[in-house]
């Protein structure tokens, strides 16, 4: 089984430096793209590969690049940004890639920037990723020294500068337009779309924002081709995926597996199944803003379509396990408290609705829940659902709640009847 993304990530070892990664052919994709391919050829290749964004939304990457305005006005600059602001509860895959193989990301960024003809690239890094910050700074310096960044890269006439920006800590900055505002030194509030960043993004110029895992693919695709990428998967959605499992399993961790690997295989074979004395009750498949799946969904292939067919989303592919010794209401409340605290406050449904939801769930936990509160919670899931808020923050928060009300309704009712949390 090929594991292109994690092949050179060695546990408890420093990542390969520029010389070592180049010796393994790590920058061959950059050489090929910049010397042998026109920018549009690179974009078309990524389109052909069917690569979908790995940050959670799954938008086709090549399509996103091709929607970037060709001839910008103003300063004429274009920007590429790596979204490395991983802060979704339960998501931890990008840290692994950033700390384990920074040159894989940087080489992918150079090619992506070339494809859209960006002159400047930023890595927007999660504040808490201190180790990754040190590693990335060193790797960027190495790439400059080797002539892969700066003026006239490899003598091709193409120039690119790369900067590392450590964030100041707000979850909403993972939303691409909020990220752009934050990179401009402003409050990280989402922007109204259109215009989309491809037309008017950072400093008003055409901008592409891609996730770490997405950009880590690019040099491999350029080097090996679209068909190679497509064949890596078990389903029609190309590539491998870095899946993660946290919670009461025997071996929590991350594994690079073919896209479409069944949930059962990830959970039982790789994560080792549940810890002794714990039963599986639910799975949040891709970070805290995805709907619960249940033990009935164990045979679902973990790809974009498969998870949707199970009423959820692939999201980040890093799943959180709900066991039978953890209160489902408290589990959902923890997520809602997070989303409530992290609401930027820009639009009323999110600013007011999330704290309200949090208070209702607190009432359940304290034995003050009432049957009519179940209807109020359902009401919230609809009115903070897609289309009713400025961005996807509140709709994402509603996903575990709406599916939790469906699958764990009896547990909510037990809280009401017993006038306390049965798990405490």
């Amino acid at each position: 089984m090929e594991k292109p993304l994690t092949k050179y990530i060695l546990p408890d070892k420093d990542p390969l430096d520029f010389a070592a990664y180049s010796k393994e052919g790590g920058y061959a994709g950059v050489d090929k793209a910049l010397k042998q391919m026109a920018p549009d050829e690179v974009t078309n290749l990524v389109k052909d590969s069917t690569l979908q964004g790995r940050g959670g939304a799954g938008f086709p990457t090549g399509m996103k690049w091709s929607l970037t305005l060709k001839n910008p006005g103003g300063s004429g600059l274009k920007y590429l940004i790596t979204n490395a602001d991983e802060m979704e509860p339960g998501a931890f895959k990008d840290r692994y890639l950033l700390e384990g193989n920074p040159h894989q990301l940087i080489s992918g960024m150079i090619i992506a920037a070339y494809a859209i003809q960006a002159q400047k690239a930023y890595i927007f890094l999660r504040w808490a990723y201190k180790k990754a910050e040190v590693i990335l700074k060193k790797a960027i310096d190495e790439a400059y020294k080797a002539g892969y960044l700066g003026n006239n890269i490899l003598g091709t006439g193409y120039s690119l500068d790369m900067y590392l920006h450590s964030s100041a800590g707000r979850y909403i900055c993972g939303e691409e337009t909020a990220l752009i505002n934050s990179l401009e030194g402003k409050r990280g509030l989402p922007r109204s779309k259109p215009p989309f960043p491809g037309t008017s993004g950072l400093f008003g110029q055409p901008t592409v924002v891609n996730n770490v895992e997405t950009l880590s693919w690019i040099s491999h695709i350029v080097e090996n081709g679209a068909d190679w990428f497509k064949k890596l998967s078990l389903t029609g959605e190309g590539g491998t995926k870095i899946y993660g499992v946290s919670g009461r399993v025997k071996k929590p961790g991350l594994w690079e597996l073919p896209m479409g690997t069944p949930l059962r295989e990830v959970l039982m074979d790789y994560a080792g199944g549940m810890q002794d004395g714990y039963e599986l009750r639910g799975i949040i498949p891709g970070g805290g803003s995805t709907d619960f799946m249940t033990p009935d969904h164990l045979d679902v292939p973990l790809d974009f379509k498969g998870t949707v067919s199970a009423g959820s989303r692939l999201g980040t592919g890093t799943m959180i396990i709900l066991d039978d010794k953890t209160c489902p209401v408290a589990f959902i409340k923890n997520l809602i408290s997070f989303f409530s605290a992290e609401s930027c406050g820009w639009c009323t449904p999110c600013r007011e609705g999330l704290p309200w939801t949090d208070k209702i769930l607190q009432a359940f936990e304290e034995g003050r829940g009432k049957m009519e509160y179940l209807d109020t919670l359902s009401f919230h899931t609809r009115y903070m659902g897609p289309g009713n808020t400025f961005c996807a923050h509140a709709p994402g928060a509603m996903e575990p709640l709406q599916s939790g009300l469906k699958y764990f309704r009896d547990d909510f009712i037990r809280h009401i009847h017993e006038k306390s949390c049965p798990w405490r």
Partner: protein
Amino acid sequence: MLSPHEKEEIQKEIALYPYAQAACIDALKVVQEHRGWISDEAIRDVAEELSMSVTEVDSIATFYTRLYRKPVGRNVILICDSVSCMVMGYETVYKRISDILSIRFGETTPDGRFTLLPISCLGDCDHAPSLMINNDLYHDIAPEQVQTLLDRYK
């Protein structure tokens, strides 16, 4: 007033952007690095340096959770309270730390040695429960390890 060192570091950040205001968050981080937190005076200094209004800089400083608008202790403990850490028992770790230091989330010990804050998520979910003290990440924390951990920070 900004020190020469602070001014120099802020100017380096400004050079990375097309206009000075874009370096606002970085400038606030520079000040915090030197002074531990961002006072009203510091907000005024940064506003002047970047030709921004005081209100504008304050609105940015209060938006980001890792910019401190109140003094913090010499060591800041960030306990991950995200769902993975909850499932794996962060609450018992929090209780142990809270009992030893006699402070709760949002508080600082009277001697200024520690400030205790929640954070979500540290991106260390497979090693939950996790916490950070200053820039150091600790994972798979058991309550009985807490005292030894705290002893490292004076």
